[in-house]
């Protein structure tokens, strides 16, 4: 990894207290010509993952190539068991691929995560039950080799709770929050690291439909204001089309990406976006692909 030392220098020279809002590159820029302007923020080349089950080796991901442009919002969509969560885990550095390479901002994912360049959100909020929303949002900042002093971490967490519109609940315990609020704390916790990349594994999967839509709009708002690169794993076609710039459709048997669909919708999206013809077309197309992928599995 010849690039590692240079990278370390640039990240260190950035003051950690810098506001997230100020490092926002225009998300539309990356969309127009992703590869020409800058190298992809996240790349995967020939990534395969094998799991061993009772001596049997099962290939859960096979030959994945993917480029996520800087500042983009992409979704991974597919039936359950298609390996979309596994791919996200590989990108997060939680899982080492059996074959192939993954880089996040030119680094190995594990290294990028240690440098607070990756924020993670799971389906479950996984908050600490004895800590308030604010302390939970600050927690990861106070952990590990890059731990910041507690007061700095709390300031940062406060800022992030404002961003997810939860400043009023800062002193509440997780048990006093609704599912949607808990998940917003989890998002604030991820953002508090000031990561370059936000990886989300079905973050709204456990929420009711109305809360889901509200959270989706909130996430879009956060994305527009912070310019983070976001990768979202979802099984909701609506959610994928509404939020993403690119949708990667995955299929099972073997788990792979069968198509990458650019979503041709206006950069700014709101409730009216759902009524645009392009929305319906993209949705119909994705649905066809998913059904095909499903049929292929049974064949």
């Amino acid at each position, binding site marked *: 990894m010849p690039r590692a030392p240079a990278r370390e220098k640039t990240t260190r020279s950035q003051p950690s207290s810098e506001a997230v809002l100020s490092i926002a590159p225009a998300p539309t820029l990356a969309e127009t010509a992703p590869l020409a302007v800058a190298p992809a923020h996240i790349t995967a080349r020939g990534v395969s993952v094998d799991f061993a089950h009772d001596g049997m080796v099962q290939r859960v991901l096979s030959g994945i190539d993917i480029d996520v442009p800087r500042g983009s919002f992409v979704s991974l969509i597919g039936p359950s068991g298609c390996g979309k969560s596994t791919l996200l885990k590989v990108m997060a550095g939680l899982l080492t691929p059996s074959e192939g390479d993954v880089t996040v901002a030119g680094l190995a994912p594990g290294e990028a995560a*240690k440098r607070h360049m990756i924020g*993670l959100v799971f389906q479950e909020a*996984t908050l*600490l*039950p*004895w800590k308030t929303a604010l302390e939970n949002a600050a927690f990861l900042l106070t*952990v590990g080799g890059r731990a910041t002093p507690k007061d700095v971490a709390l300031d940062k967490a406060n800022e992030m709770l404002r961003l997810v519109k939860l400043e009023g609940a800062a002193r509440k*315990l997780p*048990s006093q929050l609704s599912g949607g609020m808990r998940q917003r704390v989890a998002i604030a916790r991820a953002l508090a690291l000031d990561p370059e990349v936000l990886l989300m594994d079905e973050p709204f999967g456990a929420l009711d439909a109305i809360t889901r839509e509200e959270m989706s709009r909130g996430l879009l708002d956060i994305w527009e204001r912070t310019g983070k690169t976001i990768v979202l794993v979802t099984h909701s076609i609506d959610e994928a089309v509404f939020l993403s710039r690119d949708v990667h459709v995955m299929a099972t048997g073997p788990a792979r990406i069968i198509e990458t669909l650019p979503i041709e919708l206006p950069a700014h999206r709101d409730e009216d976006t759902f009524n645009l013809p392009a929305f319906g077309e993209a949705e119909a197309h994705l649905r066809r692909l998913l059904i095909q992928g499903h049929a292929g599995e049974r064949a």
Partner: protein
Amino acid sequence: MTAIDQATLRPRAVARGALLRRVRKAASDILPPLALLLAVLAGWELAIRLLKVSSFVLPAPSAIAGALIAKQGMLLQAARVTAVEIAWGFVLSAVVGVGVALAIVRFERFGRALYPLVVLFQTVPKVALAPIFILWFGYDLAPKVVLIVVIAFFPVAIDMMHGLQSVEPGFIALMRSVGAKRGEILRRVQIPYSLPHLMAGLKVAVTLSVIGAIVGEFAGASEGLGYVIQLSSTQLDTALVFAALVAVSVLGLAFYYALEFAERLLVPWAPKYDPLHRS
């Protein structure tokens, strides 16, 4: 019902209503078991008198109460001795149990060696070790404390271990990903997570500690409630045996509720995190 109605109708009565409600709640918790206990005691008293059961076979509740009052000085002194044994034994059980759990979870390889041995040791009838402990540690406090620890550390260790391992794996992965080391994860997440489980283990341990102390005194002692029970039963003073039993129960209850109180102070968030009622 009236307390609630008043509170809702007249705002000024809210505080008084709340207090009333609380008293009613406490009363509704205590009254049914108390009534049942009194009924059982009354039935017992009646049966003894009607059937003319000899007092050294089974004394009437009134005779037991009489013994409690007549021998109160001696019983209090014996209870003090037993209480000290229970307290030491319980505290050391907690320390040993927590230590074993931490060692097993923190040092995986050592844990894999230790855990089966701990379980194996659990299958030894510990009560049978009492005479050996008398042989090794003498007649005083030490053998009782050792016996209690041997009996009572196991639930503490098992519950604590379970608690340490109950953290969502996703959260541990999250901490690892930002560079947290195992020790830090253990200290800042796993140990706090385990506290409600630990409290459950401690509650079992405290009742086992009472048993351990009495058994230890049976095996060889010159004071304590177990000694009183043994001595008075050889003298066919069955009323005193039961009086001592009452004292043992009161002691056990006191320890148990002290622990419940400590739990409310230490882990106020725990009931909300009951695995059965997680939302």
